[in-house]
């Protein structure tokens, strides 16, 4: 380089100065880019149609203040890189519109809950018994209220003394699912203190439990094996209307409000606009069938219509073919096998245990004393 020329020297100085500042700006810009790609707005809204049901359910969920990446990526550069690389094919799938409708679950490569959920939740905590008061309403004129109280023996605790439902997390429980949805469990192995395994098998599926399959497919039970819809919870209109009535978001003294809401939203509507039209027809119902209520309670009717529209928004996803029945919720056993994927089904494999079935007694997880009182 002809450094003796002042002009050349100044050019080089400028280029070097611009390059140095550029590196600093690249670091800032790169950080901004990563931060943006980790944002909920990026995950939920960029691939709008694909993620619309998941994003909508997430916004109304108990984890709505936890960013998507906290659970789907977790901390650490290796997982950040892995997630970005695994996301590249999805960009092309989304652009081409080749994605599954609805999105299949469970997510195959979701990071273990021990590295995500347990960063905030401490499974060793002894939660004791949880009293759940469940208020439902009948689809009659007075929306008859029914209160059902259940006691859940959540338990938990350090591994040596863990008990009840959260014992499953304190202990090391391995299982072998033989279907993609992890509903068919053919084998369970509980690690004992000596490091051995107490094994249980499904008598109908013994042939499918091979050493190779066990080595490749067995999973260590964690939070998401039961709490599999902890965030993307698709509740039914009935459940959401009951919740809104119990919370006072919908006035429970409005005649037939539960029945009307259900008729408008269940079965699912082919579009959100149609759901809104059906909900708005409630006004006409009260005007013609209950003119006095319509005159005196206009505000309550309008509020109920707005709330039912919000429920429609949380339950109507025709483009992705998602309804409240699409995804299985493993928590409990009301709508899906849940606990009974193993309990009452698998039998002890050891000869000395004489085919003892994994206990399915209600008292294992519930107390009924409060209900009886």
């Amino acid at each position: 380089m002809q450094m003796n020329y002042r002009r050349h020297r100044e050019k080089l100085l400028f280029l070097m100065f611009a390059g140095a500042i550029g590196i600093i700006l690249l670091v800032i810009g790169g950080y901004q880019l990563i931060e943006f790609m980790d944002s909920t707005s990026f995950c939920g809204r960029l691939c709008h149609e694909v993620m619309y049901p998941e994003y909508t359910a997430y916004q109304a969920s108990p984890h709505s203040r936890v960013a998507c990446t906290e659970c789907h990526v977790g901390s650490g550069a290796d997982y950040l890189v892995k997630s970005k690389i695994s996301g590249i094919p999805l960009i092309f799938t989304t652009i081409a519109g080749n994605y599954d409708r609805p999105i299949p679950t469970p997510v195959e490569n979701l990071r273990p809950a021990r590295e995500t959920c347990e960063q905030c939740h401490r499974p060793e905590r002894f939660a004791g018994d949880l009293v759940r008061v469940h208020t439902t309403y009948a689809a009659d004129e007075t929306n008859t209220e029914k209160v059902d109280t259940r006691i859940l023996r959540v338990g938990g605790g350090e591994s040596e003394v863990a008990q009840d439902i959260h014992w499953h997390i304190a202990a090391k429980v391995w299982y072998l699912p033989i279907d993609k949805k992890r509903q068919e469990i053919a084998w369970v192995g509980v690690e004992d203190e000596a490091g051995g395994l107490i094994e249980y098998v499904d008598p109908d599926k013994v042939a499918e439990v091979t050493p190779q399959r066990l080595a490749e497919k067995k999973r260590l039970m964690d939070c998401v094996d039961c709490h599999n819809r902890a965030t993307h919870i698709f509740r039914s209109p009935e459940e959401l209307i009951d919740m809104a009535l119990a919370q006072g978001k919908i006035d429970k003294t409005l005649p037939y409000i539960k029945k009307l809401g259900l008729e408008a939203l269940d079965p699912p509507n082919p579009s959100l606009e149609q759901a809104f039209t059906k909900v708005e027809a409630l006004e006409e119902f009260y005007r013609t069938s209950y003119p006095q209520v319509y005159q005196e309670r206009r505000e309550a009717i309008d509020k109920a219509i707005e709330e039912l529209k919000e429920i429609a928004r949380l339950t109507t996803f025709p483009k992705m073919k998602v309804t409240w029945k699409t995804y299985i919720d493993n928590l409990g056993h009301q709508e899906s096998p849940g606990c009974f994927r193993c309990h009452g089904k698998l039998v002890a494999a050891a000869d000395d245990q004489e085919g003892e079935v994994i206990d399915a007694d209600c008292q294992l997880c519930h107390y009924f004393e409060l209900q009886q009182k």
Partner: protein
Amino acid sequence: MRYLREIFDDWLTRAAGINFVLIVALVMFNVFSDLPERYPLFGVINFSMVPILFISGGIIFVLAILKSYE
């Protein structure tokens, strides 16, 4: 002005200058604006421009050095 005119007297240095100004403007915009958050597609394009401009800046730098050898 004459000093600056002397530095930016060829298209490569001018391109480097424009590139530099664009990076500064983009980073500043991304710090202070919430538009990328509100419009994620715009955000993707916007945030991706910084590394793209940096790489193009690097190419310009190399070309400018090579040219100065001629």
